[in-house]
């Protein structure tokens, strides 16, 4: 059976599973549609949260990102997991006790203000659409690479499937498909990782292989450091970002993660407050399986790639791989354009080194090298893994299904919070208060459908800046939603005026800073370290935005009149489980 046929069968089988689940878990009430009737077991919710959270970027790109960043890649590992500690300790149990349907609803009730609720809806929609466009793009790309269909067709199929279970099943349908999607994606991720670990180090567990020996009494990481510095690259285990920047990016990603509406809302679906606490633990456990494997895969793959090209000593004539002798996986991925070679010095061999490093470039020139000849797309690290390890075709097919599962599960979660914000926070609470539950459910379904179409359009036709603004989603979540939710629980004195002023300050500051450096609106100079405020890059500025939000909210609140007695009672109520 050909690889394409096999991939069709595996991907098709997973789709059939998702659609089957959608039929089984059709939403009948708004409670089902928004929060799965609050009947989700904490372990199931943990899996669903993990799939919800781990996107196409986590599945496809992260290991590669770390492979080329080395230590600096730690910002993603710590940032995207540490946020769950904040979520579990500071937000999830209290939001569950609050017990309604959406994040803007909490903000509106706690701050007795429709304005606060609308500002929160605006933040939520900006965050979620930025994010979802990337997911749909991921679906299209996986389809086109593995199944040979064009991006548009891939997108349409993906949209069709999401449409089916998100519109029909709402949160209930999404939750149980996400559980299935988690199983698919984690299996697809760990199988190739185990085999790669075995091949390179003889140790089966990637997390241990990462710290094991690579032959000759040398540890894997020491060898990697040696091999990459020999070619003028930065040492793998020590980064090139400044500690201040690493600190702030990590903090911004953590706070941002804890403030993402599609993650927060998952904790509305469990039966009890204590389930919300343990469920966050399960979610992080399931996420950690992938997140501790990824850096191992990154390091193993970087070593593999580098030593494949630089097969002998640097400087020896036959130390570099002859182009004609490149391995089969290399040829396969050249066809997709993810790997590209340009023989600059015409010697028929590939030179892969850091030509931006002045000292090494000089030495390279003396050896007759005329520039780096290999371009590698970071996505290849995960996608090509099974072939590099020589695994059977069904594993390759599984990786395709895993990538699609990761993208679809995240997209569905995002689409649901968007539709809930529209039907519940805008229509039901503001535009048309008198509508019945049935009508609200219909409006929820219609807005989910519209959101799917819009997301598909954005995925097919991504605005040029999508890749540039990933920082936006986290920055805005960190600077706008996280502080007001936290203060709403822990500061009983916080009032409407403080919350609105804080949210707007955080939002305007963060959006302004990112736009200033990312959209070339910089009269003072480019997006370089020297121009950054305190040396903090746009990726890390959300942490500063959050601090500003806290400061302004507290100051404004202290200067204005305290919240009414009912609000104090609400705070008292959400603070205790019973």
């Amino acid at each position, binding site marked *: 059976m050909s690889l394409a046929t096999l991939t069709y069968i595996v991907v098709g089988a997973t789709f059939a599973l998702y659609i089957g689940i959608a039929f089984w878990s059709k939403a009948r009430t708004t409670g089902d549609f928004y929060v799965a009737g609050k009947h989700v077991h904490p372990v199931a919710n943990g899996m669903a949260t993990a799939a919800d959270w781990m996107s196409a970027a986590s599945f496809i790109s992260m290991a590669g990102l770390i492979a080329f960043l080395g230590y600096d890649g730690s910002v993603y590992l710590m940032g995207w997991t540490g946020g769950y500690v904040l979520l*579990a300790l500071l937000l999830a149990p209290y939001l569950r006790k609050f017990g309604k349907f959406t994040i803007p609803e909490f903000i509106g009730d706690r701050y007795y203000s429709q304005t606060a609720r609308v500002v929160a809806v605006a933040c939520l929609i900006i965050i979620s659409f930025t994010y979802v466009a990337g997911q749909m793009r991921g679906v299209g790309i996986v389809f086109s690479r593995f199944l040979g269909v064009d991006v548009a067709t891939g997108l349409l199929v993906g949209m069709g499937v999401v449409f089916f279970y998100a519109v029909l099943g709402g949160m209930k349908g999404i939750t149980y498909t996400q559980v299935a999607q988690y199983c698919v994606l984690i299996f697809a991720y760990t199988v190739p990782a185990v085999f790669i670990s075995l091949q390179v180090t003889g140790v089966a567990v990637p997390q241990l292989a990462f710290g094991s020996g690579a032959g000759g009494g040398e540890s894997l990481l020491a060898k990697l450091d040696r091999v990459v510095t020999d070619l003028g690259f930065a040492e793998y285990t020590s980064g090139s970002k400044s500690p201040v920047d690493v600190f702030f990016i990590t903090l911004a990603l953590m706070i941002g993660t804890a403030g993402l509406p599609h993650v927060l809302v998952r904790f509305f679906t469990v039966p009890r407050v204590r389930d919300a606490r343990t469920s966050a633990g399960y979610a992080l456990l399931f996420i950690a399986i992938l997140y501790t494997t990824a850096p191992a895969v990154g390091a193993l793959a970087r070593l593999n790639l580098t030593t494949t090209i630089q097969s002998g000593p640097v400087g020896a004539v036959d130390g570099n791989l002859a182009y004609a002798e490149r391995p089969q996986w290399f040829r396969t991925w050249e066809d997709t354009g993810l790997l590209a070679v340009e023989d600059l010095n015409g010697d028929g061999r590939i030179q892969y080194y850091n030509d931006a490093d002045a000292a090494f470039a000089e030495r390279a020139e003396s050896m007759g090298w005329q520039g780096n000849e290999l371009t590698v797309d970071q996505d290849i690290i995960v996608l090509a893994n099974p072939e590099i390890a020589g695994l059977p075709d069904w594993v390759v097919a599984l990786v395709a299904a895993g990538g699609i599962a990761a993208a679809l599960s995240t997209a569905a979660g995002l689409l649901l919070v968007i539709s809930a914000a529209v039907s519940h926070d805008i229509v039901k609470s503001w535009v048309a208060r008198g509508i019945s539950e049935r009508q609200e459910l219909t409006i929820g379904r219609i807005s989910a459908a519209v959101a799917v179409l819009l997301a598909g359009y954005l995925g097919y036709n991504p605005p040029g800046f999508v890749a540039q603004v990933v920082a936006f989603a986290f920055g805005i979540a960190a600077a706008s939603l996280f502080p007001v939710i936290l203060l709403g629980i822990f500061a009983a004195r916080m009032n409407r005026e403080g919350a609105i002023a804080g949210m707007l300050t955080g939002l305007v500051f963060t959006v302004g800073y990112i736009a200033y450096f990312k959209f070339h609106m910089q009269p003072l100079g480019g997006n370089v370290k020297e121009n950054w405020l305190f040396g903090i890059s746009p990726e890390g500025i959300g942490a500063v935005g959050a601090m500003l939000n806290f400061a302004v909210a507290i100051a404004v609140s202290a200067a204005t009149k305290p919240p009414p007695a009912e609000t104090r009672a609400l705070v008292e109520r959400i603070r205790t489980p019973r």
Partner: protein
Amino acid sequence: MRKRSNVTAPDERAQQRRGYWRDNLRLAGCCLAVWFAVSFGCGILLVDVLNQVRIGGFELGFWFAQQGSIYVFVALIFFYAWRMGKIDRKHGVDEED
């Protein structure tokens, strides 16, 4: 106010809630101190110092940044959930039903 037979129930409940909240804040504060120490401390601020120590094939600081902090995070949430369960029961606000 002393606990006496003529103390009104709402007062007692308010005091009980304050005690519960204080215990909760103390526990969360301790957990967040550990959270900060393993990630921002060991993984970022002290990474160069800890990298002098080697555990197996890892430099310790690098291990905290790419592996250790994540393990600690997971353990920390389960620890918090377990201790909060105890605090809930101690103050009689648990949802055992």
